[in-house]
Every structure is written in structure tokens, then in C-alpha cells.
């Protein structure tokens, strides 16, 4: 009888462990676990890096090489853009004097220094879209409709930013529907906010919004944040309440609107 009870309890412990290990998406793995797992030599047998691994790898150069060896060139370019943006932060901080010790930035900065160490220094030249805010507001219903159609299908970050700015330039954005308080954006606000939204969408697409991802490290190193912040939390700390509200509203509107048919 006693043997049965002991045996059953032992099996129960094993069953709990099995339940914990079984199934579950890759994203459930914390950054601290994934980092050693991907820090293998380039070309390690049977291992293909995912974008998630690249954004969380301690050995970023190796993970990037593995990813580049098997992913489509277009995906590799997009991923390299984000990696460059993160590693560029170190040079930016150096340039504008934000390199003295700073408890809100140091952890992210140190982590970026480690991860970016074996990568070439990214150029500080960042190509931007051709869209520029005009001195005067234009009024052209046909162009406005075309701009909205372009925005409706814009998914890639740079395409999204350009399409948004063009729609803004032509006063085509339904700001009264985007913002519950019917606020209107200044041109500089429109540009700054859509870049945050694009950043947010890209980290979601690449499954790299969590703490320890390159996206979170970039925002934290630039603006400072509390330890363990994910991308959303880091932007929450970096933005004013008003701007954060705007980002949420734009993100929600874009997501819903782009998911529906273009009217």
C-alpha cells in the first residue's frame, strides 16, 4: 500500500515536469535561455537561426550569419536593417554625449556592446524616404485617395512610414477617427509617432518585443528604461503620456483598418 502511494507521488512529479516541458511556442523561451543556445559556431550542424534567435542571441554575428545562410535575401535585408539600427545606438550615444555612466541606460548599453562587438560598425547614414512635409497643406482629393490606398497596403516599416507621411501631407488621414479626443498632429509629431508604430509592428512581426531583444535594448539604450522592460514598456517610459496615447491610437487604427477592405 505504502509502495503504491510513493510510486504514485513519484509519477505525479514526473507528470508535472512533462506538463511543463511539453508543447509551447519558441517565444516562451526567455532571452537568458536562448542566448547560450544560439551561441554556437557558424555552420553548426542542423541548426538554422530564426529571426527571434538573432534578436536575442548573445553571439549576434554568428546568429546573423546562420540566418543569412538560409533566409530569403529580402528578409535578411530587413533583419540587418534592424540589427544596424540597434548597434548604431552606441555610436549615437557617443556622439551626443550620452556616454557617461547612467543607471537607466548602462545595462542596455553594455548588452549592446557585447552583442555588436563582432559586427562592423554601422554607418551613421540612415536613408530616409523621399517624403518631406510641405510648407503648405495641399488639397487634392484624387491624390489623397491614392495615398490612403497606398497606406492601406503598407506593411514594411519604411513603406509604412512613407505612405503615412504622404497621407498626412495630403491631409488624407482621418485623424478624427484615429484619435478618440479628435486631436490633430503637427507634422513633426506625425513623423515621430509613425516611426514608433512602425518599430512596434516590426518587433511584433519578428517576435522580438520582449526584454533582452535588440529592439528593447535599442530603445532602452537611447532613452533609458527600467530593467526588464519590453519594447512597449520602454516606449511607455520614453514617450510623454500624450504621445504614448497617440501611438496606441495609431497602432490600433492601422491594424483594424488595414485588416479590412479598402473603401
Amino acid at each position: 500500500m505504502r509502495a503504491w502511494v510513493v510510486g504514485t507521488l513519484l509519477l505525479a512529479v514526473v507528470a508535472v515536469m512533462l506538463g511543463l516541458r511539453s508543447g509551447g511556442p519558441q517565444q516562451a523561451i526567455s532571452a537568458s535561455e536562448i542566448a547560450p543556445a544560439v551561441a554556437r559556431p557558424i555552420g553548426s550542424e542542423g541548426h538554422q537561426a530564426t529571426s527571434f534567435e538573432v534578436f536575442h542571441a548573445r553571439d549576434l554575428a554568428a546568429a546573423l550569419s546562420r540566418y543569412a545562410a538560409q533566409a530569403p535575401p529580402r528578409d535578411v535585408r530587413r533583419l540587418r536593417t534592424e540589427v544596424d539600427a540597434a548597434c548604431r545606438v552606441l555610436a549615437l550615444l557617443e556622439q551626443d554625449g550620452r556616454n557617461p555612466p547612467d543607471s537607466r541606460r548602462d545595462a542596455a548599453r553594455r548588452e549592446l556592446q557585447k552583442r555588436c562587438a563582432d559586427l562592423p560598425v554601422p554607418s551613421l547614414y540612415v536613408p530616409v524616404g523621399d517624403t518631406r512635409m510641405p510648407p503648405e497643406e495641399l488639397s487634392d482629393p484624387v491624390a489623397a485617395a491614392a495615398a490612403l490606398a497606398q497606406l492601406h497596403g503598407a506593411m514594411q516599416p519604411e513603406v509604412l512610414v512613407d505612405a503615412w507621411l504622404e497621407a498626412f501631407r495630403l491631409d488624407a488621414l482621418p485623424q478624427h477617427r484615429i484619435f478618440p479626443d479628435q486631436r490633430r498632429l503637427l507634422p513633426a509629431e506625425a513623423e515621430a509617432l509613425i516611426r514608433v508604430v512602425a518599430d512596434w509592428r516590426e518587433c511584433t512581426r519578428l517576435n522580438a518585443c520582449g526584454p533582452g531583444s535588440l529592439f528593447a535594448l535599442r530603445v532602452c539604450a537611447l532613452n533609458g528604461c527600467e530593467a526588464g522592460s519590453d519594447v512597449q514598456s520602454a516606449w511607455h517610459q520614453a514617450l510623454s503620456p500624450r504621445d504614448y496615447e497617440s501611438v496606441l491610437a495609431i497602432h490600433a487604427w492601422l491594424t483594424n483598418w488595414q485588416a479590412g477592405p479598402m473603401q
Partner: protein
Amino acid sequence: MTRPWPMLPIAALVLIIAMLLGNHLRMQWTSSTAPPATPTTVLVLAEPAEEHWPLSNSSIPIDSTTMTVRRAADIRGALEATRRQLDADSPMLSSLAEEARVACSIVRRPDASARRVESDPNRRVWLDQLLRRCAGLIDTDLAPPSPSGSALEMWNQQLPLVAALRTSIDAGEELAQQHLARSADPRLLAESLRFLLDQERLPLAQIFRGVAPPSRVDIEAALIFAADWIGCLRSDSCAADGLWTLYTCAQFGCPDGSDLPRAYYRILPAQQYEIAWRLVRWATRR
């Protein structure tokens, strides 16, 4: 005779429960560590703590001259009255004229960007108030000032950096501390804060007691807001009818009845707001 088989259903039940428990724990853990698929947080704008509101501090001496202009229903008339009271080269007169010019230019000389947001209901009420108050200002009031040589010299004499260059760092510090203790002029207050920061003579341990001192660039980014805040406190013009509140809310939009601290709370990142109010507290409660 022993009977092992009746224990089997109990054992099987325990195992099933254990499996389910393990799976439940895994799901809980997953949901707490997985990155969010989409941002869903709804930001609730909490009011700043009462200690962030040094508005009712009756111990702050009020500068009546600056208060008259900054709370005037007729800014032009108030400026004229001030011109009759003060020397034409007075730095205070120059500062007040510049404040009026900057604030009123938003509504009197809006650029293309400003026109795009004229219909914003969060800005409209503030723009309308500014329009009323700025009525009657003439072109020369809205043009950038061209101070005389003697006015420039009087202005320079007030700058801590000039005092440091002409006399000594200590003289610059003394002047900066005087402004920070008494002045209602945001330009002098900002210059004084910047001078002390540059010379590493701001008592950061005292100002940021209980928190990690922020980096220098973060303090620099908050200096202007802190200076405006101190200036409005010393002229009792931080409320919804104060010129700085109107100017700030006309630019960014504010809920009805906002005062300057509430406007800053809304338009500044949390850390920048924290730095600004700590500088204000230090300067006004010494």
C-alpha cells in the same frame, strides 16, 4: 489477501491532475514571458502626486510686475503699462516683451504647421484665449527684438557665465544662486541652471535625493521646463489663465482647465517631468 488493483483508478486520477497542473503552470509562465503580440495597454493618465504641485505654496514671493503681464486679459495694454514703469533697457521688460511675442505669434502669425492643427478641439480653446489676449499687438510687438547696446550690456551683466568670464567662477555661481532664489525670468533661470550644471555646482545629491541622479543630458533636456515652471510660480501664473499655460496648451493641446504642471505632466516623458519638478522644488523651497 492484498488488493492492488483498486488503487489504480486513484493513481490514474492523480497522474491526470498532475499533468493538467503542469500544463497550466507552463501556460501561466508562457503568458508572462512571451512578448506581446500587439500593444494593448491602455494608458490611464494619473494625476501627478500632490507633492508635485507646489502651486499653493504661499511662501513663494510673487513678482507683481511679471504677474500683471502673464495673467493679463489684454497683453498689449499690460505691456504698455509695464513700459511706463520700467527703464526702457530693463532686462525684465525685454523678457516680458519676448514672452508676449513668442506666445502671441502662435495665433497672430501661425505657420503652415500651426494652421494644420487649428481645428484640434484640444488646442482650439487655448488658441481662442490667446487670440483674445493678444488682440491689439502691433507688428513691432511681434517682430524679433533688436535691443540697444546699453540694453544688451544690462542683460549680459545678469548672466552667470558672463560674470564667471569677467570675474570668477565663484562670482558666476553666486549670481546664478541669486537668480534661482528670486528671479521670475525663465531665461535667467535657465541660464543659471545650465551654468551650475556645466560647472558641476548643482547639488545633484540633494535635488535627486532618494533616486539615482539622471544623466547630464537628461537634466539639460528638462532645464527649460523647470525654468518656465519656476518663473510661473513666482508670478502666480501657472494656472489655466497664465501665459505659459496658454502657450503650452495652444501648442500641444490640453484638457480644459489644465494648469502648467498638468500640461507638462501630459507632454513630457515621465523622467523628464520628474527631473523638472525636482529642480523646481529645489529652487523654490530653499
